[in-house]
C-alpha cells in the first residue's frame, strides 16, 4: 500500500491525472507528481496502463484515445469517461466536514450554520453516494477549533493579506502588557500551542510570539513583504518552536517519579538523556527564553531541578522566593 502500487491508489491517481492532462495545455508531470505525492515515472507507468486499454479498444474506450508525453508535459486527448474529476468520496466528505469545523481556515465562513449549509450543499451536489459527513462527529480536533480564537483569526488574516498587525502581548513576568507592531509571517502550531513567527518593528528582528499571550490584535492597512530568505522551519527544532535560532544549554534533572514521562517523550523525539543511579534522568534543553525553562521546571514541582548554569538556578530561586513573600 505504501509504495503506491495498489490498484486503488493507481486508479485514484488516474482520476486526477487524466482530467488534468485533458486540459488544452496538458499538465506538468512534475506538478502532478508533487500534488499526488509520487514520482513522474510512476505517473508515466499509470498512463501506460491506460494506453494499453486504448490500444486494444475494449468496450468503452474511444478509438482515438491519445496520450502525449513530451518530456515534462503530458497531454491526453479523448479520455472518454475520465475527462472530469470524479465526485467527492465518503471519506473525503468526512475530511471536508472536519476541515469546515475544526480549523483556523474554517473561520472564513464565520457562522457555524453557514458552514453546515456549505457542507450540505457539497454533499448534495458534489459527493457520491449517501451523505456520510456525520461520521466526522467521531473526530474531535480540539486544538484547532475556530470559534474560540478570534485573535488568532485576526493574526491569520493579517498574515494572509500581508498587513501589519498591532498586538498587546502579556509576556510572563512582565510588569505591563507590551504593545507591538508585528509583520506576521506565519502561524505555527506546535505541541498544543499556536505561535506567530513575526518581524517585530520595535526590536527590528524576527521574533516568536505565543498566540495565547496576545490579548488584543488589530490589523492595519499597512502592507509588508516577507524576506525571500525567511523560512519558518528555521524556528523549529525537533517539532518545538524557538524564539531565536540561538540560545543557552540548560541541564534539568527529573526525579524517578516523573522520569518515565521524560523518557517517553525522549523515545519519540530522539532526545539524549543521561540516566542516573536511582532512576532519575538529566536532560539538556536548548533554551531561548529563560522564563520558559523556569516555568517548565516548576510544572514538575519539586520533581525537577535546574542543575546548571548557575544563573538559571538563581532565577528559579528568585521566582519561587517571590511567591513565598506573598
Amino acid at each position, binding site marked *: 500500500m505504501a509504495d503506491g502500487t495498489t*490498484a486503488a491508489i493507481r*486508479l*485514484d491517481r488516474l482520476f486526477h491525472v487524466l*482530467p488534468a492532462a485533458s486540459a488544452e495545455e496538458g499538465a506538468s508531470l512534475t506538478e502532478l507528481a508533487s500534488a499526488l505525492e509520487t514520482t513522474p515515472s510512476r505517473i508515466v507507468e499509470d498512463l501506460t*496502463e*491506460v494506453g494499453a*486499454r486504448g490500444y486494444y479498444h*475494449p*468496450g*468503452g*474506450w474511444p478509438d482515438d484515445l491519445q496520450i502525449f508525453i513530451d518530456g515534462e508535459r503530458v497531454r491526453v486527448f479523448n479520455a*472518454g*469517461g*475520465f475527462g*472530469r*474529476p470524479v*465526485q*467527492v*468520496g465518503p471519506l473525503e466528505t468526512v*475530511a471536508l466536514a472536519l*476541515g469546515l469545523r*475544526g480549523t483556523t*481556515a*474554517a473561520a*472564513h*465562513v464565520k457562522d457555524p450554520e453557514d458552514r453546515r449549509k*456549505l457542507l450540505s450543499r457539497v454533499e448534495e451536489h*458534489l459527493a*457520491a453516494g449517501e451523505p456520510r459527513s456525520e*461520521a466526522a462527529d467521531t473526530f*474531535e*480536533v*480540539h486544538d*484547532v477549533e475556530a470559534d474560540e480564537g478570534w485573535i488568532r483569526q485576526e493574526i491569520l488574516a493579517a498574515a494572509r493579506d500581508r498587513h501589519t498587525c498591532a498586538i498587546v502581548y*502579556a509576556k*510572563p513576568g512582565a510588569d505591563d502588557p507590551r504593545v507591538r507592531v508585528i509583520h506576521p*509571517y*506565519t*502561524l*505555527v*502550531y*506546535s*505541541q*498544543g500551542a499556536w505561535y506567530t513567527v513575526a518581524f517585530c518593528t520595535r526590536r527590528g528582528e524576527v521574533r516568536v510570539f505565543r498566540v495565547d499571550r496576545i*490579548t488584543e490584535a488589530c490589523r492595519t492597512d499597512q502592507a509588508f513583504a516577507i524576506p525571500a530568505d525567511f523560512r519558518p*522551519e528555521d524556528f523549529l527544532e*525537533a*517539532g518545538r518552536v524557538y524564539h531565536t535560532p540561538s540560545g543557552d544549554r540548560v541541564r534539568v534533572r527529573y526525579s524517578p517519579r516523573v522520569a518515565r514521562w521524560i523518557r*517517553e*517523550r525522549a523515545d*519519540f523525539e*530522539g532526545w539524549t538523556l543521561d540516566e542516573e543511579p536511582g532512576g532519575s534522568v538529566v536532560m539538556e534543553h536548548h533554551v531561548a527564553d529563560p522564563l520558559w525553562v*523556569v516555568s517548565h521546571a516548576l510544572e514538575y*514541582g*519539586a520533581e525537577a531541578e535546574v542543575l546548571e548554569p548557575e544563573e538559571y538556578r538563581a532565577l528559579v*530561586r528568585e*521566582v519561587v522566593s*517571590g*511567591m*513565598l513573600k506573598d
Partner: protein
Amino acid sequence: MSHGITKLQRWLDLVAYLANRRFPVAVEDLRENIPAYSLDPDATEKEKESSRRKFERDKDELRDLGIPIETVDYSIGSSGEQQKGYRLTRKNFHLPYLKLVNEASGGTRAGSSPSHFEIRESEVEAALGGLREIASLPGFPLASHARSAFRKLAFDLEPTVLRDSPVLFAPDAEAESTADALVILSQAVRERKTVTFHYHAMTRDAQADRSVRPFGLLFQHGHWYVVGHDERRSAIRMFRVGRMRDVQRNEAAAGTPDFTVPDDFRLEAYGGRKAWELGEDEEGPVRTTVLFRFPRALWAERNRHGELVEDMPDGSQLRAFEVRRRDPFLRWVLSLAGDATVRSPTSLRDEFRALAARVAQQHREATDG
C-alpha cells in the same frame, strides 16, 4: 481471454464502459465488451461463475472506493421483461464544474445544478484551507482523503484563488509514529468495531491489555486520544494512542457493528480537559481561588482559565477553579512563575506555599553532591 489483465485494467475498462453508456448494462453485455469478463462460447459453468464473481468483486470494490455504480431493474423492448443491469451516470460520477460567484452579491445559490456548482470565495477559503490544515495535522488518519478532496475542489479554480496558507503544523514525532495505529482505530470508530491493544498507563506506571469500544478520536495538546468504553473498567476512558502497542481491530463479523454509541455521548465534552479535571483525589473536589497579577490576568481571562470572581483595582483578578486533583493544579499555578498564587481555601494555599518552599530549598542546595 482475460489472462494477463491486471486489476487496474479491469477497473479502468469497467468504469470506462459504464461511464459511456446512457442506459443500464446487463452482465451479459459486460462479458461481451470487457475482456477480463469475457468467455469462450464453450465456457463451462465453473468459468461462467468465476467470471461473474470477478465482476461482482470489482463492482463492490469500486463502490467502496466511492464509484457510484448503481444496480437497477429495467425493462427490455416492448415485452416489458424486467432485467437487472448496472449504471454509472455522469451526473453521479463526475464532479460538476465549480464556478466562483461574486462575494458581494452572494451568488445565486439556486443556480447550482448537476453540471455546475456555485461557490463564494470565502467558502472556497474555508473548504480548501480547512482541508489543507486537516491534512497537515500530525498523524491525521484521513490526510490522504483530505488531500484528494482538496485536489477535486481546486480543479476548476484559478491558481490565484488557491493562496498559500500561512499556517504551518510543526512535525510531531509521536503523532507521526502512531499513523498506522490511527488508521486501524479510525476504521474501527467508523465501523463500530471493538479494538484491543497493550497500554501503558503512565500515572500508575502499569501495563495491561485493554479491550475498548472506540466511540471517537480526539486530537489535543499535540496528541491523539481514543475515547471509548473500557470493557475492563466498564466505564468511558481516554487512551493516548502514542501509549498503545499492538492495536488490533475485531475482524469477526465484518460489516456488522460490535456496539452502538450511547445517545448521550458527546466527544467534544472530552476535549480541553486539564489534568486537574481528570480523576479525583480522596478528599473530593475543591473550589479554589487563584490571584492572577496584571498583566497575567489578561492572559487568564483571554484563555478562559477559571471563572472571574473579582476584578482588582490594580488590574489583577481573582479567579475560581473546580479542582478534582490538587497536585497537578498546584504545579500548574507554580509554573506561572510568580504571576499567580493560590488564595483559598487556606489548606490548599498552605500546600502551595509548602511546594514552593521545597522547590526553593532544592535549588539552594549544591548540585555536585
